[in-house]
């Protein structure tokens, strides 16, 4: 059954013949599993340690870093976490991420649609500019971003937290590529019926773009939720700390600063949960590209 599923039907019998004479294949497959299991341990063990340690006492975490059973089991670290500003940081992260994601998806779709479908003078120049902006490495923008926020007088304000993150060239590119892959005939029919450009875009084109919109939503949410350097240069007010910036202050950067590991790992665990949920629910949109060719074999 499985073999026929994974090989093209028309020449399915062909590869069967030589397979039986190769005992090396068995060894190869065994080695493949050894490699995969080894790397799974390397990849899952840190997360396991993280979960377990957040339920330990400080002393237990420091003395038995390898133990996979907390002794005693305690949620005290989470209690202490809520004595910090963790709730405020989470609140800030939520509104910033939601706002950035919503605005990015809407404005990227508008711009992507314009570049894909609407004929206007200077369109190819605009597209070249978008490609050029995509090539600008984000880290070299840190000081420039501070300068413009400072000059506009919005440094250390809520606007500075989210507005610069909305500017996004990569999303325009993704939406443009998608809109170009959709047949134009449907929109043309709607246009002949007399619908305006925005009407056509909003009620005909966008509903068809669901897969691309979901992909862009996920990428934008994840990027803004995990963002750190921008928040560092955009504000210093403690009331404007997001989760990334706030949790970063729990460890004063230097290693060996106390042994509050259950607290820091608990914070790291909690801040990972929203992205993890999004990841597991929408996983096929993350790995969609990889799955695309699966049908072909």
């Amino acid at each position: 059954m499985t073999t026929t599923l994974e090989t093209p039907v028309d020449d399915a019998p062909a590869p069967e013949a030589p397979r039986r004479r190769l005992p090396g294949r068995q060894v190869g497959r065994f080695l493949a599993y050894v490699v995969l299991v080894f790397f799974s341990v390397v990849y899952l063990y840190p997360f396991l340690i993280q979960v377990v340690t957040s339920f330990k006492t400080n002393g237990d975490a420091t003395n038995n870093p390898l133990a996979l059973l907390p002794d005693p089991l305690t949620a005290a670290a989470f209690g202490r976490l809520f004595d910090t500003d963790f709730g405020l940081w989470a609140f800030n992260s939520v509104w910033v991420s939601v706002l950035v994601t919503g605005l990015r998806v809407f404005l990227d779709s508008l711009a992507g649609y314009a570049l894909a479908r609407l004929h206007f003078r200077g369109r190819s120049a605009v597209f070249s500019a978008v490609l050029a902006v995509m090539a600008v490495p984000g880290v070299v923008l840190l000081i420039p971003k501070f300068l413009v926020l400072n000059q506009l007088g919005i440094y250390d304000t809520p606007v500075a937290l989210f507005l610069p993150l909305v500017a996004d060239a990569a999303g325009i590119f993704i939406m443009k590529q998608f809109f170009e892959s959709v047949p134009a005939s449907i929109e043309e029919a709607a246009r002949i019926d007399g619908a305006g450009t925005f009407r056509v875009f909003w009620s005909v084109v966008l509903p068809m773009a669901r897969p691309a919109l979901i992909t862009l939503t996920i990428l934008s949410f994840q990027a803004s939720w995990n963002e750190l350097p921008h928040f560092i240069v955009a504000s210093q007010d403690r009331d404007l700390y997001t989760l990334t910036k706030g949790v970063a202050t729990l460890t004063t950067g230097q290693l060996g600063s106390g042994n509050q590991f259950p607290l820091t790992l608990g914070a790291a665990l909690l801040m990972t949960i929203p992205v993890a949920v999004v990841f597991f629910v929408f996983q096929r949109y993350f790995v969609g590209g990889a799955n695309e060719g699966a049908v072909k074999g």
Partner: protein
Amino acid sequence: MTAAPAPAGALATASPRGSGRSSSRAGQGRAGWSFAAPQLVLIGLFVLIPILMAFWVSLTDWRGRGSPFTGQVGFVGFDNYAAILTEPGLARQDFMTALRNNAWYVLLVVPLQTAIALGLALVLNSKIRAKGFFRTAFYFPTVTSSVAISLVFIFLFTGGGAVNGLLGLVGIDGPNWFSDSRGLLHLIGDGLGFWDADSPPAALTDGGPLGLSWWDWLSGPSIALAALILLVVWTSAGGYMLMFLAALQDVPNDVREAAVMDGANSWQRFRAVTLPALRPTLFLVITLGLIGTWQVFDQVYLISQGNPAKTTLTPAFLSYTSAFVSGQWGRAAAMSFVLFAIIIVLTSVQRFLMRDKDAAAEKKALKATQRARAASSKTTFFQAGR
């Protein structure tokens, strides 16, 4: 029929449907600009104008007080660039140390993450059970935040932490990772008897280019930087693995089967069929790797702050502290532009190498890029300034 008079050229080439189109074209022109306008304004305001402002600041001695765009700020020409590139002094020594650290970092991270990503993709592309589980496990760190991962690694690599605990089980006395500034090459050379790391040969310590001795340039990454390298390879390999997996789906199956019929063994098949098909993706992964690794900031900020003994200092982090901690804004902006130039040069070299090959390969790479963009958030991370 036509509301707006169409230009003569348009009329000449107009098809029977042309008159209707030209009226919609005028409307489309307005709609096109107004659709694109919000993002164009934001990109102009938060990408293009800031770059121009920073370039101006890099030519001044602005110290962070008031606005850098008034007459009170001193114009110093390219002095800031000279201070970090050509003039002997502490500023250049720090910047060159940061470049050295980052170069060793790139030299190790890019090959390691590419090799692991390719290896895992090849294994996962064979007939394996629980493929989805393994893929998820390897990819998951890519989507989690650098803060969460850094906190976990601080715990794992602490002096009495899990990594040293595991090393202890096999009888190795692990180092105090994040506070160990000894260079790996210094240690290896010492171990092989080439030199004594405590009293290095004078031939190496006496001179060297750009303000650092040969001994310093050739230190290799420090133990602390090596721990950061492990962290980053661990985090990013999964994302690149997805790109390779996507590309492997495109390897022509009939060619591979023909090779099997011809009696090619698996290594020959890999060399002759799989590797050529993966070449564009390999180039893409290396390019993205180069761009990303020269920008390392988060992990340094979170874990080591450039310590110990400046061995985890990177240009991005040094630029940040020069501005926000030391108030040397002009110099910090100059560092950003040098870093920008390094990345642009490396990407151009890569692009030049790709242009060398036939158009088909290029087209394929573009397709792979688009697919990878959809498949991986990695790309947007880079753009978003990670």
